């Protein structure tokens, strides 16, 4: 336990000081940290899933609070919680299926007492089966009775049984942790390989002699373009420099090293050049539940220009960037303002930035936001590791990856009872 605490504190520090660059690295480290937390959690006899969920939530809250703008942290926390719930559910149905057989076999003894819990167990099993697997026409026509109460934990049906159940439980608790950790490992693997899966789809979208426009630098975009180059597509790339970080220069350097014809343009020239461009391909910082994109600053301008010239605007995003929250006022709440020194030299303008002049307020404000919000109607296509999707489909992917109970992670303080 003290080991994990030290790890957690160390990671919190790194998040607060913004030392980790990029959502993929952040997501991976968050997942690894949560894996350690899970393996260190002590499991009670009953309600193991709840204990896991509680410990993950406790750590997750602090992680999100350290860097609320880095949405990948919250995404991974919610993914892990969903994994816990899912694994618990599948173990329950497996156990219930086993229990059903055993209950039916010794039907003669205690029929009254057994039938009731057996029925409830069967009902719970049926309900959980229906939530885990899509209903077949058979079950729909059979009209399963209203025992669709969400099965919180398995322990409600199990108390009336005896020793067999307790033996099951202890083996199940070990199994739950094991399954969860396996699934988290899979998640980490997915996060690491998202670039390859996205890059595989490059050939379908980039044809011969095309002109691609991008802004700033994104590793996903770099891999995507290089994968197309590997498959012998020849195309040109316009890279907009992406002030004030000028990461477009980095991307341009990388692309020319790999042999792609690249033209570096200024951000101001995007509108002028976009009429000669076939497709705009960009990366994203996060994708919100409505299909809107939190992207590096300047991309809303590019998206508007692309819409005006009917150029497809394609966003590449790994599934760890998909956030189940809806963006409310994203320019302010999901944005970070960077240092003004990237825009203005302090020495030249220090007299204007001074609070001591005349009216007691500085005459000059400098604004340097990091992110831009691109509304879903400007995005033509999302390419994720699971394939290409419309912005209107993104809410459906959320149902696959996240549970509704995990959307609000903050524990409510007991409201004066």
């Amino acid at each position: 336990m003290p080991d994990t605490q030290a790890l957690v504190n160390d990671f919190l520090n790194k998040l607060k000081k913004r030392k980790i660059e990029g959502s993929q690295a952040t997501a991976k480290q968050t997942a690894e940290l949560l894996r350690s937390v899970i393996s260190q959690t002590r499991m009670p006899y009953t309600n193991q899933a709840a204990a896991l969920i509680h410990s993950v939530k406790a750590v997750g809250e602090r992680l999100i609070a350290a860097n609320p703008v880095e949405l990948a942290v919250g995404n991974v926390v919610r993914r892990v919680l969903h994994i816990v719930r899912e694994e618990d559910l599948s173990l329950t149905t497996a156990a219930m299926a086993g229990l059903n057989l055993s209950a039916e076999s010794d039907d003669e003894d205690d029929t009254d007492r057994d039938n009731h819990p057996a029925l409830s167990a069967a009902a719970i099993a049926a309900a959980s089966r229906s939530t885990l697997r899509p209903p077949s026409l058979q079950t729909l026509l059979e009209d399963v009775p209203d025992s669709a109460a969400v099965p919180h934990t398995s322990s409600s049906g199990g108390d009336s049984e005896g020793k067999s159940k307790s033996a099951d439980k202890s083996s199940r608790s070990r199994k739950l942790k094991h399954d969860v950790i396996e699934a988290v490992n899979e998640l980490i693997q997915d996060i690491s390989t998202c670039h390859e899966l996205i890059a595989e789809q490059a050939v379908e979208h980039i044809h011969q002699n095309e002109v691609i426009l991008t802004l700033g630098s994104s590793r996903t975009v770099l891999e995507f373009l290089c994968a197309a180059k590997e498959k012998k597509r020849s195309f040109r790339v316009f890279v907009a420099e992406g002030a004030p970080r000028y990461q477009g220069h980095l991307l341009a350097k990388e692309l020319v090293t790999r042999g792609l014809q690249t033209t570096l343009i200024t951000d101001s020239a995007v509108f002028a050049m976009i009429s000669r461009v076939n497709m705009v391909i960009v990366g994203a910082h996060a994708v919100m539940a409505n299909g809107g994109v939190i992207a590096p600053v300047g991309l809303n301008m590019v998206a508007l220009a692309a819409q005006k010239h009917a150029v497809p605007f394609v966003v590449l995003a790994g599934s760890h960037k998909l956030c189940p929250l809806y963006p409310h006022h994203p320019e302010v709440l999901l944005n970070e303002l960077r240092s003004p020194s990237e825009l203005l030299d302090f020495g030249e303008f220090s007299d204007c930035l001074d609070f001591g002049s005349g009216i007691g307020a500085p005459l000059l404000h400098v604004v340097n936001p990091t992110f831009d919000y691109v509304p879903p109607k400007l995005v033509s296509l999302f390419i994720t590791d699971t394939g290409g999707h419309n912005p209107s489909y993104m809410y459906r992917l959320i149902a696959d990856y996240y549970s509704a109970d995990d959307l609000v992670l903050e524990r409510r303080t007991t409201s004066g009872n």
Partner: protein
Amino acid sequence: MNRVGLQYLAGDLSGGNARCIAMLQAFQEAIRDYSTPPEKTLTRDLTSKIGGFVSFLIECRPLSMSMGNAIRFLKSRIARLPLTLSESEAKTTLCSDIDRFINEKIVLADKVILRHAATKIRDGDVLLTYGSSCVVEMILLYAHELGKQFRVVVVDSHPMLEGQKLLRRLVVKGLSCTYTQLNAISYVMHKVTRVFLGASSIFSNGTVYSTVGTASVAMVAHAFRVPVLVCCEAYKFHERVQLDSICFNELGDPDAISKVPGRVDVNYLDNLTDKQKENLELLNLKYDATPSDYISVIVTDYGMIPPTSVPVIVRGYRKEYLLI
């Protein structure tokens, strides 16, 4: 003439009006110093001399549209000189014509524009401007003198970074300003009430030809339903039509893109290998064309006109100064 040319080359003199005035004043000096060689007529010889000067200026830096119009005016004046005038009379006539052109078409025109545009500024406004336009600067300072309370957002872009000079001049006069760069325009546009832009020229289909990046500003303003006012003297209008920014443009120094002044940490493009250099192209456009549907109104010395009225002024009213 050499001095002016070198100033263009060095980039010390920038902005349509400043370049035009400097060029015309240089022409005035040249005319005063001119003397007709024997057996040549004044008009033809002077015209060819002017042509020579113009070629020299083009070598230093391609002409702006305003300069092109001014040269056409001067050549037409020279052509219309009555043959009965003596050389000294002709020279004084030409010089006074140039003075009148500068006075009426630029100086007085600017005063009229100021008065019109200031009526569009209300208390509590947040005005956005892009780059550095002398007309817009005059408007802002004039409105501030009138006592109107407003804030200014100065948007700037790399590599010219002209906004910083404008910012310095505005803050010195006591205007409260916000400074940002072009990419952040979607962030600031939420709070902006009016956008004031300058222009290098306006074409007959209403397209505004101005510093690169103006089109993006107008487009984002249009998307956020913010009115865009373009302030431009009528002598800059041109009968050419243009649909996009690529057909006619000026290329700047490509190395200016790879250098970022004052930021040592971002010099990624130093030390490129030959293989890298052959694949990499640096494109530094100077101008771009803003479609007319993004412009709400054009403020000129003929009043406030919609972009669709530009060809009316080009055809109808321009003849008057050619006939003076």
